[in-house]
């Protein structure tokens, strides 16, 4: 019963950017991640990009899940990614975006560094599976 064996956990920050007040999606994802055995840091509503960067860096998360519905993804998401890069925390963080992202915007976000985009139709299981496969492979 030693207490000193390595004890890893997949850490995820679930953040909600933008001005819309809907965080049901973020809640659903937070709970699903928890049920999958992940450690979820939930940061609440209306977070500005620099706040998300601060939280992701300090909490040293493996996964950053950004929920966005407001339509401002094309400006907000690249800001978050630039922020992570400035702290040298981009490479080892899996970046997921959830919400309503028009098809034509997706390539641009992926180009910016988003690892996966999950639309409203995506099953939670698929999202969890994606994290299991790709997170924490430093």
């Amino acid at each position, binding site marked *: *019963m*030693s*207490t*000193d*064996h*390595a*004890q*890893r*956990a997949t*850490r995820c920050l679930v953040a909600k950017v933008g001005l819309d007040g809907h965080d049901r999606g973020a809640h659903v994802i*937070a*709970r699903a*991640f*928890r*049920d*999958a*055995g*992940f*450690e*979820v*840091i*939930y*940061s*609440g509503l209306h*977070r*500005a990009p*620099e*706040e998300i960067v*601060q*939280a992701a*860096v*300090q*909490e*040293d998360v493996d996964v950053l899940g950004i929920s966005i519905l407001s339509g401002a993804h094309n400006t907000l998401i690249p800001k978050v990614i630039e922020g992570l890069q400035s*702290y*040298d*925390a981009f490479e080892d963080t899996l970046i997921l975006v959830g919400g309503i992202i028009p098809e034509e915007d997706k390539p641009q976000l992926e180009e910016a560094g988003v690892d996966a985009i999950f639309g409203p139709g995506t099953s939670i299981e698929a999202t969890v599976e994606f994290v299991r496969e790709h997170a924490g492979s430093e």
Partner: protein
Amino acid sequence: MADLSEANARLYESLLEGDHAALARVITKIENRTPGYRELLAALHAETGSASVVGVTGSPGTGKSTLVDSLTKQYREAGETVGVIAVDPSSPYTGGSVLGDRIRMGSTAGDMDVFVRSMSARGRLGGLSMATADAVKALDAFGKDRIIVETVGAGQNEVDIVETAETVAVVVQPGSGDDIQLLKAGILEIGDLFVVNKADKDETAGTVADLETMIHMDASPTAGLSTGHHGPSAAEPDPEDGDTGDDSGWTPPVIETVATTGEGVDDLRAALDDHQQYLVDSGEAAGRRRRQAETEIRRLLRTDLGELAEGVLDRRGGIEAVASQVARRETDPYTVVEELVDPLESAVEESLAAESEASEK
């Protein structure tokens, strides 16, 4: 200084240079017990000791996180840097958890000089206290002026915040009979000061009065064998470091706050500083530090000796095989343990003998 791997040496340098991402990664290594984390901590130890470490504890929902946020804001306004460890021990032992303390810590969001880290139980009982104490060391070595540790102070999952903090603030809310029960159940002893938060609520005056009565009962000589605050180590008086084993010179104040508006938080800040000053003036600070080091050494010893024993057990076929033999009455637990410990014991004796021989020469 301990031998560091190349990667850890780089992390160590970056942390001391003020790189927040490096600080975060060091804490991750500490949390994960990643091989090499001990060498890192060993190296950091010499750099610690300058931060003031405050523990904030109490039942869920009393407003601890909001209060920490408010306090942090004041420290920042005074130009001090802050590190916060928010521990949620209520998360289950296995499986995941949702850590929500950060939601309440928004008033300084975006300010990197406030470093907030959330921690869950991850199935470690004693281990959580150890990880918390070690994370505080990383923040201290980094150079944070103020370190605040938020923990839930209820039930058996309680993190032993006394092992880490110099000053412990216990937070209750008005009219909470539960909290008063909690205080009776022993948390009264660990409070260096008490905060009645949500003082915008009706029953505040009553709760403050209840608390003050309890504190005075605790402090009065008729209360019997009070070990004083921070107490069960009813150590013998040790005049050398001025630690008399009880803080008779300090009566915990009761402070009213409204964390959501910041009302009363300056009083809290002043009371925290008063207590830290008291620790220095009375010589109690040195005693506390020594007791904390004692706890740490004992815990590491137990951990490592336990691991050694596990290793011996594994060589003998593992606990299951040995237990089956005992269950079948082929042997008994006493003989089993004696056989396991004997080789360890003789190795220790041999090495001690060799040591004393060497020192006689």
